[in-house]
C-alpha cells in the first residue's frame, strides 16, 4: 500500500510537536508502521524528506530500535515476556505452546498473515507475571489456556479485551496510538486501577492506615 497525502500531512503534524524536526522520528516511524505494517523503504524516504535527512540516516535510526520491523507484521502481534521473572513464572511455557500451536518461531508470522509472535523483554508489568501483550495492549496474568483462547478469538475475528486497556484493535491501530494519534480510547478499560494496583491501598484501608496527604499547610 502506498503512503498517501493524508499520511504525509499527519507526519508533518507530528513534527510540529517538537522544537526540532528530527525529534519527531520515533513517532513518525510508528505512524509509518501503522500504514505499512512495517518500516518500509518508502516510509523511510518520506520521513527523511520531511525532517531533512538522508534515507540512510533515518534507516540508521530505525534499525536501532526493536519495535521497528523490517518485515510486515501480521494483523495481530502477540508479545510474551520471557525476561526471567515472567519467563520462569510461565512465560516460557506460554511462548512454547504458542509457537507449537501456530507452527512459527520468534518474530515470525502465520501463513494467513493473522498473527506474529515475539519473545519480548520486561514489559513493566511484573506484578502481573506472566505478562503478555496483544497488539502491545496488556494481557496480564496469562496462562497457556487463556492464551489459546485469545488466539482462537483473534483468528475468528472475535473481540479480545486487554486486561488494563481497550479491546485490541490490531497491530496497525496500536502503532497509531503509539505515534500519539488520538483514537478516543484513552478512557477505555473502565477500571482505572485494578486489584493489583490497589493492593497496598486495600491493605492500608483494612488495617486503618490513613492517607498521609492532608492537603497542605
Amino acid at each position, binding site marked *: 500500500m502506498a503512503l498517501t497525502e493524508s499520511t504525509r500531512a499527519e507526519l508533518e503534524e507530528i513534527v510540529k510537536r517538537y522544537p526540532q524536526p528530527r525529534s519527531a522520528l520515533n513517532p513518525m516511524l510508528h505512524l509509518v508502521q501503522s500504514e505499512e505494517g512495517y518500516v518500509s523503504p518508502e516510509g523511510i524516504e518520506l520521513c527523511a524528506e520531511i525532517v531533512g535527512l538522508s534515507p540512510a540516516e533515518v534507516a540508521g535510526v530505525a534499525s536501532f*530500535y526493536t519495535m521497528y520491523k523490517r518485515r510486515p507484521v501480521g494483523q495481530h502481534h502477540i508479545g510474551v515476556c520471557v525476561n526471567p521473572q515472567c519467563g520462569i513464572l510461565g512465560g516460557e511455557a506460554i511462548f512454547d505452546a504458542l509457537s507449537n500451536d501456530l507452527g512459527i518461531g520468534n518474530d515470525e508470522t502465520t501463513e494467513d498473515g493473522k498473527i506474529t509472535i515475539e519473545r519480548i523483554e520486561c514489559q513493566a508489568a511484573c506484578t502481573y507475571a506472566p505478562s503478555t501483550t496483544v497488539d502491545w495492549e496488556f494481557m496480564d496474568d496469562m496462562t497457556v489456556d487463556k492464551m489459546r483462547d485469545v488466539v482462537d478469538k483473534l483468528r475468528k475475528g472475535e473481540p479480545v479485551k486487554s486486561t488494563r486497556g481497550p479491546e485490541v484493535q490490531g497491530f496497525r491501530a496500536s502503532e497509531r496510538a503509539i505515534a500519539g494519534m488520538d483514537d478516543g480510547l484513552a478512557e477505555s478499560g473502565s477500571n482505572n486501577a485494578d486489584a493489583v494496583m490497589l493492593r497496598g491501598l486495600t491493605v492500608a484501608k483494612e488495617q486503618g492506615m490513613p492517607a498521609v496527604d492532608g492537603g497542605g499547610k
Partner: protein
Amino acid sequence: MALTPNLTAHWDEPDSYTVAGYERHYGYQALRKALEMDPDAIIGELKESGLRGRGGAGFPTGMKWSFVPQGDGKPHYLVVNADESEPGACKDIPLMLASSQHLIEGMIIASYAIRANHAFVYIRGEVPHVIRRMHAAVRDAYDNGYLGKNILGSGFDLDITVHGGAGAYICGEETALLSSLEGMRGQPRLKPPFPAVAGLYACPTVVNNVETIASVPAIIRNGGDWYASYGTEKSKGIKVFAVSGHVNNPGIFEAPLGITMRELLGYAGGIRDGHNLKFFVVGGSSVPMLTEDHLDAELSYEGMEAVGTMLGTATPMVFDETVSVVRAITGWLDFYKHESCGKCTPCREGTWWIDQLLHNLKSGTGKTEDLATLNELCAQILGRSFCALGDAAATPYPQALNLFRSEFEAGTHTAADDLFDPAASVVFSGVKTS
C-alpha cells in the same frame, strides 16, 4: 512499619487520572502556591524534602534542579524519564495510568522552578494505553488552563509533548534518552557535560523519573519538612514499592523508605503457599540479589548499601525454592546482551562472552574454570563500560555465585532444568513436568 498511601491514595476512584478527579483531592493547589513563589524557593523546598531520584540512581532532586544555569539565554527543558524497562520495575506505568495529573502538575512546577517552557514525557513505546492516557491527560490539563500560555495568569508558559519510544532499554539511561528524543539512535553520551548544562539540543535539561516528578506537588503543598518527616536520615520520604513474583498477593505498596522486605512480604500475603523464599532482587535485575538473611534490612539507599546491594527502583522480585539461580541469571544476561547498544567494546563484546559461558553452565556443559572466568569477565566490564548498562550486566553473576555456588558447579555436568523442574516454578496449572 505502616503503609502510607500518598500518590496511590485515591486510585480506588474511577477518574483519579482526570483533572476533575484530581481536583477533588487538592489537585493543582500546589501549582497555585508554586506560581506565587520564587523559583529558587521551590528548589529550596525540594532540597529540604530530601527527595532523591526514584528512577534508581537516587540523586538528590533539588540539587539536580539547582545545577541548571540561570540567565544563560538558552532554552531550558524538563524531560520526564518514563522509559520504565528495568526488569522488575513496574511502578511508573501504573502511576501514569492512575496518577497522570500528579505527574503533569509536578512537571509544571518543576519547569517553573528550572525556568523551562517546554517539557517532555518520554514513554517506552510498548505501552500504547499509557501513551493514550498521557496524551489525554495533557489535553485535559490544557483544556483546564494548566498548560499553554500565561498559566493561571502568572505569565508562565509551558507546553508538554508526550513522546513514545521504540523499544530500547538503553533509553532509560538519561543521555541515551536525550539522543533518542533528538531523533537519533539511543546511545549514551559522555558525561560531563551533564544534561543540566548540555542536555536536549545542548541546552540545560533536567531529566527526572516519573515518580520523582509526581511526588513534587505534595511536597510543595505540605512543605519539604513534611516529606522529610517520613523515611530514614539519608533516605527521606515515601516510596512506591512494587512487589512481584512468587508471592500470594503481588502489587503496589506505598510506604516510607526504611520499611523492611519482611514487612512488605507480609503485606503481599507472603511467599506463595507451600513454598519458601529462595532469593529476591530489590532494585531491578541490575543489582545484587539477596536472601532470607537480608529480610530485616532497611529498604533505603543506605540500608541496601550496607548489605552489598542497591535500592535501585525499589521493586522487589521474589523467587521461591523451585527456581534455578543459573537459569535466572542466564535470562538476565540474555537481556543485557540484547539491549547493549553497541557503543563501547566492554559491554558489546562482554555481554556476549558472559552469556555464552552462562548458557553452557545452564545446559550442564560448562567447565569448572568457567566459574572463575565469568568473575574475571564481570570485573573487566564493571567500571570500564561507557555507561551503567555494562555495570548492570556485570553485577548479577558475582553475587549469585557467592550465594549459590553449588548450582553453578553443577552446571559442569547437569542442566539447570534437570536440577530444577521449570514446571514447578510456573504459577498456573497444566504445564507438564519435563
